[in-house]
């Protein structure tokens, strides 16, 4: 008999190797969360700088109250999918609110952002179609593409000319074409050059989807994301997003103006065959989205904090993932062993960031990844800069 788990031996070995180098980077425990930017980790109060809690909204009193009331009124869980058990009024209210916020005709809410990508990719594209996806796409996009059964063509990251070339190569083939890009890329913090992609769209004709997971609520004058910032919303056919970052809850969504958009509800297995999100999660998402709309100053604070961290790291001479101010600020490190060492030293000194290693990163990069929050104080940002100065600046150079 072949043991099915044998194939994971190299993963187990790598994990064991990492464990011998110190704290378990993938199994870290937050013993207590004190605020959007503080947790107790290993008995120490730690600054959180790797949570994607961009708006710092997770402890907002109104959001917590909305969640508590929804749980009291609708119960702890929905115990089934919306297709089987029906929707709760809250689901529909959230979809309507989100459609209003996004200025889109239709919006469908999913249980997670991961499922939103699985659902949208597989609902939009089928075996006769082709999906062109950015090389650095999130795993949920890759998995959604696989689920769709479509032909998958990967183009070079953020390279509209390369997409143009690949579209030309496949000219004349049957089926529709979907192009998928992201607003802010989660590892390096860089943004898709949307205007360039829109120009290619006008040349070749395809449907364009943007995953605004890290940019929804964060970018643009109205907080609608990168398409809002770039002024190209009319040319983006479909938007995907998550509630797990700026919204501080759990869930995801797909949105668009297509007249048949609602039909997708009956064509997306990751929507149909999983339980809908819990009343508490839906209600906190709803309250948080209303705050994102009503309190643009949160975005200003996030921008100011991001600019401060970016300038501080630049001053230290660190090699960063992208050369513009972004709420995701990744520092490139030389190799896996030194990155793990520095990650541990930062944690011991009282700041938590993400460690990102190949194959989870583009171009085999080893990264210490920070995500900035509107809830960080300038003092927090300065402490993070000082600690990176002490722990990383002397060692990070690749």
């Amino acid at each position, binding site marked *: 008999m072949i043991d099915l788990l044998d194939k994971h031996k190299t993963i187990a070995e790598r994990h064991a190797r990492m464990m011998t180098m110190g704290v378990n980077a993938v199994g870290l425990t937050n013993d207590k969360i004190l605020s959007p930017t503080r947790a107790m980790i290993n008995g120490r109060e730690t600054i959180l700088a790797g949570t994607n809690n961009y708006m710092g909204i997770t402890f907002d009193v109104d959001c917590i109250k909305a969640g508590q009331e929804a749980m009291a009124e609708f119960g702890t869980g929905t115990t089934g999918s919306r297709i089987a058990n029906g929707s709760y009024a809250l689901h529909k209210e959230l979809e309507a609110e989100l459609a209003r916020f996004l200025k889109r005709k239709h919006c469908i809410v999913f249980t997670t952002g991961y499922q939103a990508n699985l659902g949208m990719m597989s609902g939009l594209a089928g075996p006769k179609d082709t999906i062109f996806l950015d090389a650095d796409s999130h795993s949920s996009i890759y998995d959604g593409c696989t689920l769709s059964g479509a*032909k*998958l063509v*990967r183009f070079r990251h953020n390279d509209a000319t390369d997409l143009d070339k690949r579209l030309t190569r496949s000219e004349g083939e049957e089926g529709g074409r979907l192009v998928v890009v992201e607003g802010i890329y989660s590892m390096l913090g860089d943004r898709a050059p949307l205007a360039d992609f829109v120009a290619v769209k006008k040349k070749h004709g395809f449907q364009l989807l943007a995953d605004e997971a890290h940019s929804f609520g964060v970018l643009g004058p109205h907080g609608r994301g990168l398409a809002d910032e770039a002024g190209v919303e009319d040319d983006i056919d479909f938007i995907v997003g998550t509630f797990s970052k700026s919204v501080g809850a759990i869930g995801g969504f797909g949105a668009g103006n297509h007249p048949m958009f609602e039909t997708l509800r009956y064509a997306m297995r990751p929507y149909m065959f999983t339980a809908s999100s819990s009343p508490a999660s839906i209600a906190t998402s709803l309250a948080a989205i209303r705050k994102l709309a009503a309190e643009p100053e949160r975005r200003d604070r996030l921008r100011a904090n991001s600019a401060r961290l970016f300038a501080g790291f630049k001053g230290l001479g660190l090699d960063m993932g992208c050369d513009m101010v972004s709420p995701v600020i990744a520092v490139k490190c030389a190799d896996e062993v030194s990155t793990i060492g520095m990650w541990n030293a930062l944690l011991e000194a009282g700041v938590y960031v993400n460690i990102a290693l190949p194959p989870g990163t583009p171009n085999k990069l080893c990264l210490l990844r920070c995500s900035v929050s509107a809830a960080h104080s300038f003092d927090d940002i300065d402490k993070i800069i000082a600690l990176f100065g002490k722990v990383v600046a002397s060692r990070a150079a690749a």
Partner: protein
Amino acid sequence: MTASPETIDQICKLLEPFNSTGKALTSDTEISADLNIDSVAVMDFVMEVEDHFDIEIPLNVVSETHSISDLAAVVDARVKKA
């Protein structure tokens, strides 16, 4: 499917920068298993192959090719078609 020796030769040249094992590349070399190349690097390598031959190799096809000769056969078939 048999692949031309020239194609195999060119693929080996394109693969060499991704090969950190020092193992000699032959037509039977399994790209990911023998060379310990992770899934992302395999896709990056295939992109180089696509551009070198100016063809399209969809990811669905990549997942069914294992050895260098498998990939070379795909390249030959697609070059002929183009």
